[in-house]
């Protein structure tokens, strides 16, 4: 079967508008989380990592848009443009487009939003992105809660291996809105301080926003931080729609299936880019699933302490940082973590350190009981083995 790679990539975020700058900030343990006072969005102040609107508008204007675009569309187009440009791939009928998002332009439902309510249809978002770049194929929109971003990578690989496409561009994004904040707040899931994944004193999540893009391809013309997709799986907990399984069943099954497909064992994993939302139940569930697979000694981080939980984009954002982590042979500190606060041992990265890295496992979990796990390997190492 064809090899499938993740290659050119971009992140538009509070920590910068290109992957390199963003990863440098993560390296220096700079967080994008700030206390926001916006009573329109939420009655009480909250922590979030927001994209600077002025900077976004300036970057977007350079692309000479001919119509009005929403904030999310601006983020997504600016991000994807960078990947389309640097990959230099001709957009023809063998090129697919996947958009992953949980809520898309949901802010268009607000009476005070200048855009028509129809803009909230995800297919409209898909069409707007498709038309901007002149993609030949209809946008495939993946909306599978908080695994959307990472599940898109698995789905892109499936399209390439089914020989429907040679290349798939993925753009993931969600914006911080009153809709989302009020919902998570009604679950009492929001933290009133910067989030602390896996920590003893963790107190819930922060919601953040990013747009992230990547090229998934069967071409061997790759960017230097490219990785090969070795195994992927996405299994349901079959347990509860708004809480994770106590045994981590779906995550455990996803990780096993990904390892099996990659023909690897737990010992072959150099680093885990975990989900780590900093809620009590999620982090505990992950620790249980990780121990069931004897992955507890593998260095692990959650990047939520840098970006907050960026919902449908988080899985792709964190995968891109993982690609750079491998390329830079560096394990990045899990920001906000001090003392282990889950019932099973896990090896949370306390300090950014240099280490030879060849493989990583990315995981995510979300509402509806969904879980996804994907194993990646440095592509330059793959070449040496051929």
């Amino acid at each position, binding site marked *: 079967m064809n090899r499938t790679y993740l290659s050119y990539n971009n992140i538009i975020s509070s920590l910068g508008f290109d992957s390199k700058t963003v990863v440098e900030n993560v390296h220096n343990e700079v967080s994008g989380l700030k206390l926001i006072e916006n009573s329109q969005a939420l009655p009480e102040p909250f922590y979030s990592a927001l994209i600077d609107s002025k900077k976004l508008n300036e970057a977007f204007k350079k692309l000479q848009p001919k119509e009005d675009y929403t904030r999310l569309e601006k983020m997504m187009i600016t991000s994807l443009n960078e990947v389309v440009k640097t990959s230099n791939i001709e957009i023809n009928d063998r090129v697919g487009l996947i958009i992953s998002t949980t809520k898309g332009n949901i802010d268009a439902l607000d009476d005070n939003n200048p855009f028509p309510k129809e803009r909230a249809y995800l297919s409209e978002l898909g069409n707007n992105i498709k038309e901007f770049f002149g993609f030949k194929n209809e946008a495939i929109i993946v909306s599978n809660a908080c695994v959307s971003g990472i599940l898109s990578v698995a789905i892109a690989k499936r399209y390439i291996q089914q020989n429907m496409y040679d290349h798939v561009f993925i753009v993931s994004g969600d914006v911080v809105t009153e809709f989302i904040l009020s919902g998570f707040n009604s679950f009492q899931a929001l933290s009133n301080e910067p989030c602390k994944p896996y920590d003893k004193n963790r107190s819930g999540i922060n919601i953040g926003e990013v747009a992230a893009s990547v090229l998934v391809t069967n071409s061997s013309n790759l960017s230097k931080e490219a990785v090969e997709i070795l195994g992927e799986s996405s299994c349901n907990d079959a347990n*509860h729609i708004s809480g994770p399984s106590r045994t981590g069943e779906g995550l455990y099954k996803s990780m096993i299936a990904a390892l099996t497909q990659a023909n690897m064992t737990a010992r072959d994993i150099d680093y885990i880019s975990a989900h780590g939302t900093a809620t009590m139940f999620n982090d505990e569930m992950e620790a249980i699933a990780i121990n069931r697979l004897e992955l507890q000694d593998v260095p692990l981080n959650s990047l939520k302490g840098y970006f907050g939980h960026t919902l449908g984009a988080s899985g792709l954002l964190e995968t891109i940082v993982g690609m750079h982590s491998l390329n830079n042979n560096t394990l990045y500190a899990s920001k906000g973590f001090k003392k282990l606060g889950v019932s099973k041992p896990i090896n949370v990265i306390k300090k950014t350190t240099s280490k030879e890295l060849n493989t990583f496992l990315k995981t995510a979990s979300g509402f*509806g009981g969904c879980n996804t796990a994907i194993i990646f390997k440095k592509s330059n190492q793959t070449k040496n083995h051929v």
Partner: protein
Amino acid sequence: MNSKYNISSYIHIKNNQVSLNGSVIFIEEHSIFTNFIKAAYKAQNTKYPKFFKMDNLSKLAFLAADILLKKQNLNVENNNNIALVFSNKASSLDTDISHQKAIQHKDNYFPSPAVFVYTLPNICLGEISIKYKLYTENSFFIFEHFNAEHLIANSNSLLDTNKAESVLCGWVELEGENYEAFLYLVSKEGTLEHNKQNIITLYNT
């Protein structure tokens, strides 16, 4: 190209009717969706109180899946490897609008977790997975129209890579009084070939 897989059964819920493999099994004329789906559920004699907590999209998707899967005589303790690949146009917009109403006016502000959790289209996959203990692959797609080609690519991939033994696949759309569910089961069983033409023909039945 001949497909290795077949469609072994299918279900429609639309226009106040439920039909299984092309035969109408339930009809309730002149009824709004909430009444219709409740009556259809009761006619099935499925004792599952969680049904009443679901939002309308989940009720529609759950009932369609439940009627179809019930006929498969599954032992739910058997780790049935049935993947779910669902799609629609309106995502969870029907419930999104309810949540938006609850937050639109600060003097009448009542966001609720019981509503908010359903502001994701894939929640209906969770509901079906819980009932049938499906610890399996599941994904939710949004397309402008029913898109057989993409459903085929995703189901074939799951079957080819042995990630699933069968795939419950289709379209579950709900927006106000507009609703339509069309699900079909793909596996090596059955006689109707799993191809674009057959899927479109069944969809338009």
